[in-house]
């Protein structure tokens, strides 16, 4: 799994596009007319819901859409209901965006959307990421990531992990990605306890009931500030910006593990090339904008940006990696 540090990823495309969007005089035939919908495949309040609403607002501010972006919540099967809906009922709707994240690719890789595959939709772009962390309670005896991995090498059940996703879900996989990179054997034996969300898992770790926490950096910030939680490693390529730069990466500690939980969108498959170009360009424009940078800053999102072909390849690679890992640990056959 590789990703490009996005600060370097400044496309020149963005400027002409902004012009095109404002003056609508170029040859690009596609312009959204009327209502644009964004499906958040969850109940209100979750990450996907946030993606739709915040990106929708920025699109309105940047005049990338003529009117409102209407967020529609379509919960079910961890995004499966919305995925099936997009594939079967909206295949040629070029006014439809659907929020996605690593949770979507994980479920696709593990065959949890029966009969559906990643090439049935258009992966338009990612606009940021939340990086995985592994953390312990402040009074834990575990000192650093290597210390933790050494215990796991001796006995895979010696350290128990708590996280907010289901068994086999992204939080579970992050532990396994790190353990695999550290050459821990017998991965399926590692105990992972799944909670409804990261917050619940954190309370159990802080309360001393479970040894370690696996989750995303944004989930842990509250307890990091209060000093109850000690982050052993962040699963990013480089140290995170700002106050978070104190946290060592797994790579620095000699464990080559990456765990970005990206946030982005897919669209229906059968849309015109012009429409596809319009929306991928729109993703670039959004990513460059001050408005979006503010949203990212306020919500702890880290730099991560890809569009169109590059993003498509990234998604497919991630799915292959997760599928392989899930097979290795016996989650799927």
């Amino acid at each position, binding site marked *: 799994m590789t990703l490009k540090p996005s600060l370097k990823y400044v496309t020149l495309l963005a400027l002409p596009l902004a012009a095109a969007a404002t003056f609508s005089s170029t040859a690009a035939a596609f312009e959204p007319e009327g209502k644009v919908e964004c499906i958040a495949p969850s109940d209100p309040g979750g990450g996907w819901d946030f993606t739709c609403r915040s990106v929708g607002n920025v699109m309105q501010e940047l005049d990338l859409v003529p009117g409102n972006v209407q967020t529609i919540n379509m919960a079910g099967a961890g995004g499966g209901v919305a995925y099936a809906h997009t594939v079967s009922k909206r295949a040629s709707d070029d006014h439809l965006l659907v929020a996605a994240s690593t949770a979507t690719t994980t479920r696709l890789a593990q065959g949890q959307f029966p009969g559906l595959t990643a090439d049935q939709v258009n992966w338009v772009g990612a606009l940021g990421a939340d990086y995985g962390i592994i953390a312990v309670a402040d009074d834990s005896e575990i000192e650093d990531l290597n210390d933790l991995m050494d215990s796991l090498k001796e006995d895979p059940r010696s350290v128990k992990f708590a996280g907010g996703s289901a068994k086999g879900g992204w939080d579970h996989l992050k532990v396994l990605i790190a353990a695999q990179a550290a050459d821990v054997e017998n991965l399926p034996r590692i105990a992972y306890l799944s909670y409804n969300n990261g*917050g619940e898992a954190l309370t159990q770790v802080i309360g001393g009931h479970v040894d370690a926490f696996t989750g995303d950096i944004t989930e842990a910030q509250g307890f990091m500030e209060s000093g109850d939680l000690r982050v052993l490693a962040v699963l990013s390529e480089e140290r995170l910006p700002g106050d978070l730069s104190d946290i060592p990466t797994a790579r620095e500690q000699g464990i080559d593990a990456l765990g970005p939980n990206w946030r982005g969108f897919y669209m229906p498959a059968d849309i015109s090339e012009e429409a596809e170009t319009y929306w991928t360009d729109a993703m670039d424009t959004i990513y460059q904008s001050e408005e979006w940078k503010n949203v990212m800053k306020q919500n702890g999102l880290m730099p991560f940006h890809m569009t169109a072909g590059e993003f498509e390849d990234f998604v497919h690679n991630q799915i292959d990696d997760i599928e392989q890992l899930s097979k290795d640990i016996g989650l799927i056959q």
Partner: protein
Amino acid sequence: METLGYLMDGFGVALQPHNLMFALLGAFLGTLIGALPGLGPANGVAILIPLAFSLGLAPETALIMLTSVYAGAMYGGRISSILLNIPGDEPAMMTCLDGYPMAQKGKAAEALAISAIASFIGSLVATVGLILLAPLLAKFALTFGPAEYFALFLLAFATLGGITGKNPIKTVVAACIGLMIATVGIDNTGVQRYTFGVLELFEGVDFIIAIVGLFAISELMFFIEERAGGGKEKMKVNKLTLTWREIREILPSSLRGGVLGFIAGVLPGAGASLGSFIGYTLEKKVVGKKGYFGKGDPRGVAGPEAGNNGASSGALVPMLTLGVPGSGTTAVLLALLISLNITPGPLMFTQNADIVWGVIAALLIGNFLLLILNIPLVGIFVKLLSVPPMFLLPIVTMIAFVGIYSISNTTFDLYFMVAFGVGGYILRKLEIPLVPVILGLLLGPEMEKNLRHAMDISDGDWMILWDSGLAIGLWVFAGLGLILPYIIGPLLRRRMQNPIEEGTPGSD
């Protein structure tokens, strides 16, 4: 004094104009629902949940509105008790005993005013209790590991029949139905259970759909069955002449009732009915022979009213801090919280501080709103009681369908809701209570998960389940909760029935 700061922030949230408006709307609708005989607070909140979704309210606004509905329903229950001798809901039963005789003596307005003041005091006492106790309990919740949670859920189920439960077997049947529905979906390890390859079932049954179906849709069917019924005949209420001395006389009763009610509310399973019952009996004991209970003693109105309103705030304590509802209505509110992606527990008090404290502040503000609504404006509710339900029926139907559709935008959920409605109708015909179904549905998955987690942590050693003092304590309480109703239950019930039969033939 950290709490005070949070509470101030909470007032900041609750006093925003739109939140205040929805608190007022909730208080008004709640009082109305409470006043309609047969529609209890749990049904009331269940019916109005879709309203919050169809209006697209922010989480804190939705919660503020629905807690106001909850508080309002507790106020409203007394109106029909006093005027018609039909309790608007179960906890208002004890209010009939002295409220109706007062009305018969031509003192209906005084009875309504006294009960409103008592409700206000009861609520106020209990909300202060909630403010003091909840943050403490929330911190304490950190000591709850999987084993302790498992024992706590067990306690919730054991006390479910409660002291007022009528038929223990039917309660068990109902809880089992809830637990069975709860197994649908992909389980903790990724195995599909009873999903039949239907994508919509992968995440299990949505609580809100089940609740709206079971309560609201089945209620509609009952209305239809009674041919939508006519309204009650118009009632006249005399002009209010309440002196300061009369108010002062009921103050001690109200305070006692509020404190007792709060305690009864905090205990899981007991709830508001018990609160109003002990509120009444205590008053009778304390006042002794000087009183004329059962013949229209104002203190007999004040005690139980303060008790049931106190209990309703008290029941929020275990719900907010531990995620274990203390009553049917708080179970419905818990389902609402979960569907708004807010997890009750210690973390909610820090991460969603604005929401929690906003709601608590809204309870305080709502209480004042309710006092205003219920003394000068009580006439409106009396008039509304005589509106034939056939006018309400289409509105409720519309809200239910629009609300559920706006949660997930799939017609599947609408069919599902109607199916639950039919199921709820059948269960009610069989006199199987619905609240245990909801509790089973809500708590079942949590209980299962905590058992699995405990086993994961101990590497399969069952001893972990009673390894800590706290867990053992909870097991003991659960045991008591299971046995006590068989010993004390019949005794209490007989004493609750007796005065009612003496005072009033043919209630409800």
